[in-house]
Each structure stands twice: as structure tokens, then as C-alpha cells.
């Protein structure tokens, strides 16, 4: 019984490892390991571009601040 249980546990560990290896193979085959610089920028777009912060909840509004639109300054 003890052997069975230890086998199950290490079998599960092996399944976790094989899942990871399978995912890694899939990622390589599908080009996910290429163009990393492009990948890092994939969460940005025209409306939330690089260089633009997306939260300033605690910031006191400053009219001279170029980062924020006029609506933000009024609503802050």
C-alpha cells in the first residue's frame, strides 16, 4: 500500500513535469520562443501605449502634467 501511494505521488509529479515539457515543446514548435521584444510589448496598444501610465488614483491633479487628459484633472 505504501509503495502504491508513493508511486501515485511521484507519478503525479511526473505528470506535472511531462505537462510542462509538452507545453515547452509546443511553445517552441509554434514560435512562442521567438521575437521576445515583440512579445514583451504585446500587452500595449494604440490606446494604452508604451510610455503611458494606466493608474494615478493617489495623484494630486496638476494642470501642467502632460500624462493626463483634462478629464482626469477634473475628476481627480
Amino acid at each position, binding site marked *: 500500500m505504501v509503495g502504491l501511494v508513493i508511486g501515485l505521488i511521484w507519478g503525479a509529479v511526473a505528470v506535472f513535469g511531462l505537462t510542462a515539457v509538452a507545453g515547452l515543446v509546443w511553445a517552441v514548435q509554434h514560435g512562442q520562443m521567438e521575437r521576445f521584444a515583440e512579445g514583451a510589448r504585446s500587452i500595449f496598444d494604440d490606446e494604452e501605449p508604451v510610455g503611458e501610465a494606466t493608474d494615478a488614483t*493617489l495623484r494630486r491633479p496638476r494642470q501642467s502634467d502632460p500624462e493626463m487628459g*483634462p478629464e482626469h484633472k477634473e475628476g481627480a
Partner: protein
Amino acid sequence: MSSSDKAAVGTSQAPAEDLVWRADVDRSCRVPVGFFFASAVFWLLVGTLLAVLAAKKMHTPEFLANWEFLTFGRIRPAHLNTTIFGWASMAGVGVLLWLEARLCRVRLPLGGLLVAGCTLWNVAVAGGTYEILAGRGTSVEWLEFPYFWSFFFAGVFGVVMVASIMMFSARRVSHIYVSQWYLFGSVLWFPFLYLMANTLIHPGALGGVVQAVANWWFAHNVLGLWFTPVGLATVYYLLPKLLGVPIHSYHLSILGFWTLALFYNWAGTHHLIGGPIPAWLVTVGIVGSMMMFIPVGTVAINHHMTMRGHFHRLLDSPTLRFTVFGAMSYTAVSVQGSLTSLRMVNEVGHFTHYTVAHAHLGVYAFFTMVMFGAIYYIAPRLFHREWASARFISLHFWTVAVGIALYWVGLTLGGWRQGLMMNDPDIPFLDTMAFTVPYLWSRTLAGVLMAVGHVVFAVLVWRMVFGPGGLRTGPTLLRPRVAAGGEGVDA
């Protein structure tokens, strides 16, 4: 209508495609994710109350000792399970679903099923907690809810898994961002881990030391394969978005994920150092723990280098404050964890308050702080409202930040000295216990501080979900736009 509302309506330019899909995604998440968040905050309050009671009982054991259901042996596991399965997991599922929908750029599917699942999850946490307080807990650490309730959690995890696979399959982006790897890993691994541990342990198939092996393999992987991937996925998304800069080294972030996937699940048996199990089993756990320096190093370098030159932004964004606090704590708890797995360190820290401090550094200082930050970011986008009070947000941050720092410092110092004293046969055990009392008081004080912060946070969330007034725009939503159909969408 506030001035900002008028400003929003007055901005009549047509929304860009990016604004439209983001608003659409957020709308699809509003009810299911909002329900998970609200439930999580409720269980955070319950878990906190139980935590403060348990902390006080550690140095004042006669406190509320006349009621069986309030004895330490019941309150402590009730606290653990309400915070793990109530607060942390429900907040984690909410953040996971929103992040996956955003990263895949598709609407959240199975909304009705997820709401039903969230209801079932609440029932299971309530039922399991009642059973623990009634004296029917299992005494298996991290799995104290009776076996029956595990089927509820497994069922809901199944729905979350199906929803994740559907979003991944329908994704409208070719590149899989690093956060998606972490999220998909957690969604695929944890349900299997949870079911296997419950099936092995609860029906009585295991006993004695073998049960302990399975128990700690599971308990450690709750952190490694559930909370850690969700927490790191959140940091890897929020940090660049908040700062407006890509992550410092995307190569390192990918390396970090794959090395975590390969090494973390081996580490659990280091909890059994000194126990009557085969030495090789413990050694494998220690080796796995030391290998964790690789993914932890990649994350630490990435987080710090991404933040470099932007630390002044901590003044602006509550999400950034909580996220950076959590990210730094991740490095700290991981390094501490790897070192604690060494036999020479473990023989002092094991069975002391040092271990309790370490656990809270992981689940609270890392994961909970990241979840606070994520909710501060996500909720305004779900409900199209601004947070009710910036002062309350600051109060929340400082009470919980000072609270967990005090908690960790007090119990780490006290616990380490406690371990040294317990290893000295010339020191009577009661002297060791008496020595720890001041440190236990610091724990209670820290707990009260964190409790204040949690109440403040709950008030803010309540105002966010049920607050008066219509849509508002301001410092979180930043740039209001007007969609083609006339509804405001946020940037």
C-alpha cells in the same frame, strides 16, 4: 452628474478598436468576477476575525476558553481555510478570469456557470468552516474541510478550467504573454493536485507518515502551483501596464516560468526534515527548493530592473504600491524558503513561530498584497466607478504593510530564538514558552492593524460595488471615451 461625467460625455470622438474590445471584455467579467471579488472580501473579514482571536489565545489561553467552538484547535484551522479557500482562492480566481479574458482579448465565457460556481464555492467554504468549528475538521493541515466539501471546490475548479481553455482556444492574439503561461499552468495543475490529494488522504487510503508525505506535497504546492503562478502572472501584467514600460527582460520572465514549472512541485517534502521518512525523499525536496533560486532570481531581477527609475510612481498608484510590496515579498519569502529547506536551518526553525511568519510572508505579504493591488486596478474597470476615498486607500496600505512587517519581524526573531532554546536541553520547556509571549503580543498587535486595513478595504469595495451615483471617470480610468453606442468606455 459630476464635472468629470460631463467631460466624459463631451469627449465625443469615436472609440478606437482597442477601447471597444477592452470595454466588451470588462462588461463580460463584471458580474462573475465582481461576485468572486465581493465573496473574497467577505471571507477576508471572517478569516481576519478568526485570526485575531487565535492570535490572542496564543498568549492569553483563557480568553473565550469556555466555548468549545472557540478553542484554538478549531479557530486556527477555521482561519486558515477561510483565508486560503475563501479570500485568497476566490480573489485569485477573479483576477485569473479577468486577466485571461484581457490577455486573450475575448469575452469571458460561461458567465452564468461561473456565478453558480461562485455561489457553490461560498456554500462550501461556509459549510466546511462550520464543520471545523463544530469539531469535525479532518486535522490534515490545509485540507481541514471534510471530504464532502472538496467535491464542490473541484467542480468549480472544473468550470474555471473549461472557461480558461475556451478563452485560450479562442484567443485573438498570436503571442502568448508570460502571464498567460503562469495562469494556464495554475489552471491545469491545481485541480489535479487538489483532487489527487483529497482522494489519497481523506478516504483513509493513507495513514501515518505516508499521509504526512502526501499532505505536505499538497500543501506546499498550493503555494507553488496555485498562488504563486496567479500572483506572478498578475505582477507581470500590472507592473508594465502601470508604468507604461515593457518588462525589463522578457527572456528572463519566460525562463522563470519554465524553471518554476520544472522545479517547484518537487519541494514539498522539505517540510518533513527530521521525520521518519526515507532520507532521499527529503533530499529530493531540498534539491528542488534550492533549484528554485533560478526562477526566483529571474523574477527578482525583472521586477527590480523594471521598477528602476520609476519608484516615484509609488506615490501615484495604489495598485503599484501593493504590487511592488507583493513582488518584493515574493523574492524575500522564496529566498527564505529555499534557505529554510536546508537541514541545518530547519532544525532550528521547524516547529516554531518562525515557520508561521514564513507562511504569512508568502500568503499575505506576497499573494494577498498583489491581490489587493489587482482589485484596486480591476474593480473600477468592471464597475466604471472611481474608488470612494484616496485617504482610505492609503490607510489600507499603511495598516496592512506595517501590520505584516511587524508580524514577520516579531515572529521570525521570536521563533528563531524559540528554536535555539528548544534545542538546548538545559532550558526548561516552560521557560521557552514564557520567552515567546512578548513576540506573540506583537503578533496580536499586527493582526489588529491588518484587521483595521481589511475593514477599510471592505468599505471601499462595498462603495465600489453598491455605491451611489452612475458612471464616473477620474484618476483610475484616466481617459474617458464615448463608444459608438453612446456608452462610456475606459481606456
